[in-house]
């Protein structure tokens, strides 16, 4: 019986989500030698004479994969034995770290990016105590291994926050105090603006952190925090949006700023390729519009971290809808809380969205 000449991915496995791989066994139509191969340094040379100069130019987003499920806590948090810091390498120069939800319920994400002249740590977790949350130790070990692979002894580190005031992201900062060859972006709003050269044009301007052939752009995005910023990585084409836009309960702290920041984010994304938006937390479940309660330490039905860039438009549309009103509003991938308790509830369910209750955890 003749085989169909057309490869049908559905016959080889089902896509798990909008952002998961649609071709679990590879897509033969893309060819065997994609241009992205040059973004990985070969392991073949035995002894390198000098430091590797990595090629951070890429056609489209640099290759990479968030290939693993995030740890999601335990029914009994006291018995959880997952790593305190979960490390997932996206590609050789990009790492995603997550705090164990049984150490702190916020379970924030922290991102570590490398360039030819240094590394950037975006955010620092919700726990200061290095015994409970050894972020510094983990970051140091990753930097050491990366430096060995690239033949670099010195890797200057910059630590920046998506919000200096956010206690779910600034607590780990103290672990980096006094670390050699380290620049910590100052936390006070005025000093932070000065650091990024945004004193005169906040929030309209753009800052920049150049890691060496990988220049991270800094966009002022106040709205959930008065000192909120987002970061754009032109190598992976990621937007790191912290608390401004993430798959969870977005607590709007100033609705005018929130809408204006999303407008700027939309305009920015129109001029740059964006593969994914990566926020600071996950609070949504994988059923649309449902989320975990605050302080939950067991989240077995968590949504994936990554968001499609089209969600900027959706957030903007519904951000305008709640502007000027004390209300909460549920969307499939996030919920907006404007002027109400972070524990507010609503009887209003979004039209056209299936209303599915996830099973009880026990």
């Amino acid at each position, binding site marked *: 019986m003749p085989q169909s000449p057309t490869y049908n991915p559905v016959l080889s496995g089902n896509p798990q989500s909008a952002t998961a791989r649609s071709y679990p066994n590879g897509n033969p139509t893309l060819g065997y030698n994609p241009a992205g191969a040059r973004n990985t340094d070969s392991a073949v040379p035995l002894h390198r004479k000098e430091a590797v100069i990595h090629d951070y130019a890429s056609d489209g987003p640099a290759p990479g994969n968030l290939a693993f499920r995030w740890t999601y806590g*335990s*029914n*009994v*948090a*006291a*018995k*959880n*034995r*997952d790593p*305190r810091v979960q490390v997932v390498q996206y590609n050789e120069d990009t790492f995603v770290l997550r705090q*164990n939800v*049984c*150490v*702190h*319920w916020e379970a924030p994400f922290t991102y570590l990016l490398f360039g030819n002249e240094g590394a950037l740590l975006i955010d620092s977790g919700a*726990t200061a*105590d290095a015994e*409970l*949350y050894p972020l510094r130790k983990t970051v140091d070990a990753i930097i050491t291994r990366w430096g060995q692979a690239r033949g670099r002894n010195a890797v200057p580190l910059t630590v920046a926050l998506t919000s200096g*005031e*956010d206690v779910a992201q600034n607590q780990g900062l103290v672990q980096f105090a006094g670390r050699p060859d380290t620049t910590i972006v100052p936390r006070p709003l005025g000093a932070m603006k000065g650091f990024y050269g945004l004193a005169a044009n906040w929030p309209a301007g753009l800052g920049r952190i150049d890691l060496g052939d990988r220049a991270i752009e800094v966009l002022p995005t106040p709205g*959930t*925090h*008065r000192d909120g910023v987002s970061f754009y990585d032109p190598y992976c084409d990621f937007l790191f949006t912290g608390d401004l836009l993430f798959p969870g309960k977005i*607590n*709007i*702290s*100033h609705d005018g700023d929130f809408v204006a920041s999303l407008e700027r984010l939309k305009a920015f994304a129109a001029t740059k390729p964006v593969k994914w938006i990566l926020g600071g937390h996950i609070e949504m479940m994988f059923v649309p519009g449902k989320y975990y*309660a*605050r*302080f*939950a*330490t067991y989240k077995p039905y968590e949504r994936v971290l990554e968001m499609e860039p089209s969600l900027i438009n959706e957030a903007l549309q519904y951000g305008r809808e709640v502007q000027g009103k004390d209300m909460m509003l549920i969307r499939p991938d996030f919920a907006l*809380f404007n*002027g*109400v*308790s*972070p*524990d*507010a*509830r*609503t*009887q209003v369910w979004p039209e056209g969205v299936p209303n599915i209750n996830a099973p009880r955890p*026990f």
Partner: protein
Amino acid sequence: MDRRTFLAYNAAVAVPLSGAGLASFASAASAATGGMPIDFKSNLPAVGSFPKKWICGSPSCMDNIDPPVQVHWYNPHTAILRQNKAYSYEAPFAPLYFGNDRVLLLDEGFVQLRSDWDLRAVVDQCIDEWCSRNGRDPASLELLVAFSHLHADHYAAVNQFADRPDTRYMGLTHDEMVGFWGMTNFPEERVTLDLGGREILIWGSPGHVVSEFAYYDSYTQILYTGDMFYRGRCYISFWEPWFDSMKRLIDFCDTHPVTHVMGCHVEISNAGEDYAYGMTWQPDEAPVEMTVQQLREAFEYAKMITEPGIYFTGTVFLCNQTRGTTTIDTNPYRYS
């Protein structure tokens, strides 16, 4: 959990139960009773004490090394259990009342399985200790497992007792609960449960939920008010039934001596600050016990309430029909 750790686990939870304070109970009680029936009706109220501070969580849940259940002996014949906050944020309190023939456990905790949280082993340990102090055979005592009301944080562990001999426990419907106490006129009817010389008075207390009881122990004279009145956010689902239940509590206090009013949870600090729903670390937690005066003040306050909303009586938050819309705390980062 394999068999080996399971056995070791039972031994481990036993450690916090045999505190130094119990040694004096043991000698005094054994000497006093020597296996003879205990008199629960003289020299009332039986003296007892609450701890100065309960175990109240930890900054990191996975680093919590406190016992899964804190057992506090209020007096030699009364234990109060509390679930560890790192095992469930609900961390309810659960009184365990001993009589000459029966033991009554009121409420449990918010974990189902023995492998996760072995409430039954802790209860058995308490019964064994009480029996050894009083020269009794644990097999001679019937255990009654009941709960204040029909919410899972109060009944989740109930099936841990399914294969325990000489044990009866309440079903999970209003019908079965009312039937368990032999009531035909809930909530007004007040029944007397005899634990063997120790009487527990039970009547209906709807308002937080339909299916709730108040329990009065005539020996310690503790009035246990469940979730309809406790040191935290009293989520009032049905205002009129709740108000009537409060009136019944006040009427009872007018006619009976009450030493303490005790609820199932604590969600408030000594300074009167709200510990938000779900928190697992309450470092400055208020006591679980309240006075009759505090109950009366709350009732006086409630008389003035005409609208749904959140009200602070000075002791508790009365969340009148707000659970489905809002709660107390606010976004700390709000700016203008």
